[in-house]
């Protein structure tokens, strides 16, 4: 049996399309948890990144947070949180968010800080308010980089959510974990395929968002 056989068996199994362990349910869980985690991380990371980037301060602290974030072992963090707070959706969200904040925060900071200073100077000289400079002058130019930060965070969340299935989060990770313990490799490969597919959809989603939100003048593609 090769991988493709596993995949066709997995998706060909009619029973897997219904019920609490069916693909739609598990996929739905995965999407919802991932989205929740992404939104939460963005709500923390974006404003801090924008403001620190605009004023050009706090870069060292942010770099520290970023390195710290990257160095944290996902699984270790998960175990730690679960030992402290027990199993459940809440604790399982913690590592997802903790891991997603640094890429969002740091790229947003870098994106805003690296915006060409002369339009900002010109805008200030024209009498544009500081907050408006941030949102109308810096943000549109920093957007591609900010979106790329969100995208890496999203991909990271999608894959980490798989591991979080250990703590009862549900989602596509269940197939992999259960498959492994049951030595059901169809299930393992099928679950992995779904996760990969979801990562791909995430990439596509961000590509579409940037198509619609980034000005052609910034994209420089016409």
């Amino acid at each position, binding site marked *: 049996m090769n991988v493709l056989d596993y995949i066709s068996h997995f998706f060909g199994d009619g029973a897997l399309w219904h019920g609490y362990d069916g693909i739609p349910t598990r996929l739905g869980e995965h999407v919802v948890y991932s989205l929740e985690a992404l939104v939460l991380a963005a709500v923390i990371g974006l404003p801090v990144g924008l403001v620190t980037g605009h004023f050009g301060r706090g870069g060292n602290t942010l770099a520290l947070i970023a390195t710290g974030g990257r160095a944290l072992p996902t699984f270790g963090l998960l175990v730690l949180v679960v030992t402290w707070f027990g199993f459940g959706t809440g604790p399982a969200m913690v590592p997802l968010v903790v891991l997603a904040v640094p890429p969002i925060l740091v790229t947003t900071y870098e994106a805003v800080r690296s915006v060409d200073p002369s339009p900002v100077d010109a*805008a200030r000289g024209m009498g544009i308010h500081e907050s408006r400079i941030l949102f109308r002058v810096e943000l549109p130019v920093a957007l591609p980089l900010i979106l790329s930060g969100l995208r890496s965070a999203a991909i990271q969340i999608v894959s980490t959510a798989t591991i979080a299935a250990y703590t009862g989060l549900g989602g596509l990770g269940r197939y992999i974990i259960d498959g492994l313990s049951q030595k059901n490799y169809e299930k393992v490969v099928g679950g992995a395929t779904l996760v990969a597919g979801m990562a791909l959809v995430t990439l596509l989603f961000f590509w579409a968002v940037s198509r619609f939100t980034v*000005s052609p003048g910034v994209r420089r593609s*016409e």
Partner: protein
Amino acid sequence: MIRIDQVTKRYADGTVAVDRLSLDIPDRAITVLVGPSGCGKTTTLRMINRMVEPSEGTILLDGADIRDQPVNTLRRSMGYVIQNAGLFQHRTILDNIATVPRLLGWSKPKARERAAELMGRVGLDTALAKRYPYQLSGGQQQRVGVARALAADPPVLLMDEPFSAVDPIVRKGLQDELLRIQDELGKTIVFVTHDIDEAIKLGTMVAVLRTGGHLAQYAPPAELLTAPADAFVEDFLGADRGIRRLSFFPSAGLELRTEPVVAMDAPAARLTAPADVPYLLVVDTDGRPLGWGAPDDLTAGAIDPARLLNHGRPFTPGRDSLRTALDGAVLSPTGWAVAVDDEGRATGVVSQQVIGEAIRTAHAAGREDVTAAR
């Protein structure tokens, strides 16, 4: 009028960028701040729109302290143009120019209409309106920068080395355009540059600053060239300030000689030169100069224009300066400059000697003028 009164700027690190500077900047004229790098030009300019706050002293705009009004109101009443234009990459050219009118609450169509009008004024093809900044050349971007600063029709325009990042030919075009716009609009312009030629060309008044933000001299350009206040100013003006000064003397008074000008189809009798003129200037049937020829080489009825000597660049008395006339004479192989009228028809020729006389007279008179003005 903008009055800078005993203004000092000390930055947080202790650098004194401007030291007790006093300057009266006249209305509806171009005042140029010029000086070596780091002498405090930008600092001075930015204190006028409060991008930098003075440590001491006051700046008055039409008699009122600029700190009396909200900072953004002040800035919106002053156009601001910077070195690399600082255009908003994500906005089209038209929307870049419409920025300040939009800020002031104009409707979008009205702001865009005004922006389109300004594109014409600064010499930009309106076909560029829908483009983005990256699709424009450096010179065009700079024009957009000027148009954007003029959009809300502010009485004051602050310009910080606006043309220094473009090549010399484009720069000359931008300078001429600015002078033309200024003729039409009569703004109060404060213009920063480190290029003394630009200062002399554009300035009604020129303030030469010395490192440490000290005012070395404040005078109209002609006076600067005639009577530099000290060795620093003299040095800054460069070795050829005498030649540059000639730009301020008209060529209208030059005595032109008409006998050496002969038509293509002139009879043999006309093809002799006066004793003091070694060459004849041959003109076509419309009177336009073709070139110089030695009388012995010219055969009546069979003059070959291709064999004549180049007549160099002609000057137009009344419009061009003595500098242009001298340049024409120096570049001419015969040492004589050709004068033409507005239609390009030769009106006479003049020798280097005669131009030299005129220069000596003008210089002498200029020196008296400056002395009298003091």
